[in-house]
């Protein structure tokens, strides 16, 4: 059953999404695009945009991927597989949170993981760039979106909408 394989993949990806929702992007790209070929890189970029466009967490993009590949049940199943690891782990941690938060093991490993996931995301930004930045206008849109988010308080939702309008006008 292909769909079970998909749901299991989403489950373990979320189990290793440590250090922020964006960390999911390198993991998804590896499994969903490169390994199983459930999506092309272009469709993958579209799913990030949709995750960003909707309110709430970016990780809802898994529901879009599920729908794209397996229809409604893929989508509903993806939601369960996405949040099940969180529910299991956070409820366990909540009982012992003071010990957990102060455990040096947790803090030391996070000091390694945080910069590392930044490096992973940088590598993914490059692959996505190769796919999306095909001419001068797209390069300018990317530069503009980078600057707006990095240096101002623009909401990503408006950014995505604005870029969509620009795309419609230019092409």
């Amino acid at each position, binding site marked *: 059953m292909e769909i079970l394989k998909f749901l299991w993949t989403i489950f373990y990806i979320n189990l290793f999404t440590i250090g922020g929702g964006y960390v999911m992007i390198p993991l998804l790209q590896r499994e969903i695009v490169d390994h199983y070929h459930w999506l092309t890189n272009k469709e993958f970029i579209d799913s990030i945009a949709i995750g960003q466009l909707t309110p709430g967490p970016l990780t809802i993009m898994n529901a879009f991927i599920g729908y794209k590949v397996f229809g409604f049940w893929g989508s509903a199943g993806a939601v369960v597989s996405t949040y099940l690891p969180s529910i299991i782990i956070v409820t366990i941690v909540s009982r012992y949170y003071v010990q957990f938060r102060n455990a040096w093991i947790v803090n030391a490993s*996070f000091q390694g993981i945080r910069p590392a996931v930044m490096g992973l995301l940088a590598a993914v930004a490059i692959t996505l760039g190769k796919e999306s930045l095909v001419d001068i206008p797209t390069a300018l849109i990317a530069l503009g979106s980078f600057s707006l988010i990095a240096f101002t308080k623009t909401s990503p939702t408006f950014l*995505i909408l604005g870029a969509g309008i620009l795309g419609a006008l230019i092409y």
Partner: protein
Amino acid sequence: MKEISLKNIFLVFLKMGAFAFGGVYSMLAFFEKELVQKKKWLTHEEFAEGVVIGQLTPGAPIVNTGIFIGYTLKRLKGALATVAGQVLPAFFLVLIIAYLYIKYNDIALIRSILKGIGAAVVGLVASVVYSMGKKFLTSYKSISFAVIAFLCLAIFKLNPIVLIVISGIGGLLVYREGRL
């Protein structure tokens, strides 16, 4: 204090799930205002704990902070209510968008819109890298972790899950300060 019902927890998180556009920080501000200042379900300290726990556990930090809060208020049922509330509005929206996306994907106008959006996504991911870098690259050690992880993925195409596990173990060894 008034009894907090599951329905109330669900409704507050539903409101957040429906209106919190614009990423993690706007959501955290929203949480703080609703739960600490208006409803007084939590103290500032409990809320701050929830934020830390959300970041130290796998998955979307904002959802995890919600689970922590729900669990603190009403155990497992409370936790489930927060997830349902936070996720349902976006889920329905995604279903609609996905349906339209598949149906109208090959229309030229939609392709040009997506072309613009795809470029913006690259800038967006780059800005996340930038803000993570500002926060986490504080020493030669952390810079080495970032550079090594980058090279392992970009050039050697190693599995990112394996890299996350290795960097965690690496963090233990480098930052153990004689404890291991």
